[in-house]
């Protein structure tokens, strides 16, 4: 669980870094970029053999993490047949550390939406607008993203997905290291702070993407 979690955390770094290329269109960088940097980065990820092979490993990581998570949750729920009249609740732990199964399920539902929104059109159906840079034709993922995020319902769903991810990471980041056996108090304190910092940076960046496009801070125009 911890190992697959840490693997997926490294994926988040790549995913948020690549998607953050959309912000190059902001006036402070290059307002005439119109998503060119993001499209080229997306094209690199979709057309390079190594990246496509890593994509298979990534899917395997997701599937393994989801199966492990659900089976762990199901097993643990069966360990107390009769519950308490009065529960300990927040007096002993944070609500999100007790809700990793539910948060993970919400992220899974978000993942289904996200994959059907972007991954399937770009890798399987290819029904996307095209862009051309230096004679190379590629999917215009920037326009696809922009069009998707003009719908306020989609924006809200994405923000809820990011919120679930944030709380999942608040607990999951340091818990993964503990599971792997890190017990040095100094390192654990550092990892906890690092986890909070990582979660805030990654999730704020992810949340800003639909917001920036919905509010036309970045646009293909």
């Amino acid at each position, binding site marked *: 669980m911890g190992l697959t979690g840490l693997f997926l955390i490294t994926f988040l770094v790549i995913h948020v870094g690549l998607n953050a290329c959309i912000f190059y269109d902001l006036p402070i960088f290059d307002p005439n970029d119109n998503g060119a940097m993001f499209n080229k980065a997306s094209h690199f990820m979709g057309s390079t053999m190594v990246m496509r092979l890593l994509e298979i490993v990534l899917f395997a990581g997701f599937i393994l993490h989801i199966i492990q998570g659900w089976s762990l949750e199901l097993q643990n729920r069966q360990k*107390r047949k009769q519950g308490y009249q009065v529960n300990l609740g927040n007096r002993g732990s944070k609500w999100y*550390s007790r809700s990793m199964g539910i948060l993970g399920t919400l992220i899974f539902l978000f993942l289904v939406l996200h994959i059907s929104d972007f991954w399937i059109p770009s890798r399987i159906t290819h029904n996307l607008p095209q862009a051309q840079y230096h004679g190379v034709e590629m999917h215009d993922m920037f326009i696809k993203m922009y069009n998707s995020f003009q719908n306020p319902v989609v924006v809200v769903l994405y923000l809820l997905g990011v919120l679930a991810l944030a709380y999942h990471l608040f607990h999951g980041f340091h818990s993964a290291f503990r599971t792997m056996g890190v017990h040095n108090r100094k390192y654990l304190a550092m990892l906890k702070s690092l986890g909070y910092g990582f979660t805030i940076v990654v999730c704020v960046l992810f949340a800003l993407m639909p917001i920036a496009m919905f509010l036309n801070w970045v646009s293909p125009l």
Partner: protein
Amino acid sequence: MEHYNMNLTLKVWRQPNKNSEGRFETFDVKDISSEMSFLEMFDVLNERLISEGNDPIAFDHDCREGICGACSMHINGRPHGPWHATTTCQLHMRAFKDGDTIVVEPWRANGFPVIKDLVTDRTSFDRIIQAGGYISVNTGNAVDGNALPIEKDKADASFAAAACIGCGACVAACKNASASLFVSAKVAHLALLPQGEPERKNRVLSMIAQMDNEGFGSCTFTGACEAVCPKEISVTNISRMHKDYLWAGLSTEK
């Protein structure tokens, strides 16, 4: 500290035996001194129940000084009640106010089946210890304490882990009913000392296997066990146990 008397309403879990259905029973207790311990308050109630010809409430207790781990009540949703780092027997009635309603339940976990009322069968902990929580190698005759050098940090960590009284509050508080804090404390207090080193790998493998067999859940590091532990056993012991378990699993001869 100001002394006062109080009247309370107790909602206590009653269950005649292991196989029967249980239910909450409500008792009004009057003129309880704030200087009584929580168990003394139960003694007063039980004396009244006996004098009335009723069955007294069964609860575990032994030393009544916080070191045996026998007392085990889930009081108002918290193992051992509202005070931090305190066993039920050391909890005093000044923790409550006149007119309070107190809900008292037994530990709830598949690994701790209820025997009667507030008494649970915690022999699963004994079986976990029997699986490896000891040193069986020949350590020779007793030698001068200073003849065996042990670094201070390790001695302190071992001593802190050895403070575990095996009360089961960690299991009671954990949403997964995991016994990891107990097992990790018992693993750590031996593993950190030179005498425990030769059997370190087999000990951690055997004790974790037995913990799983007893029907306890897995640790997901919520930290509830550490928050309620009357002996303040650190959850860091669980991480250390995981490290030992991983290493033992990869390198043991068996």
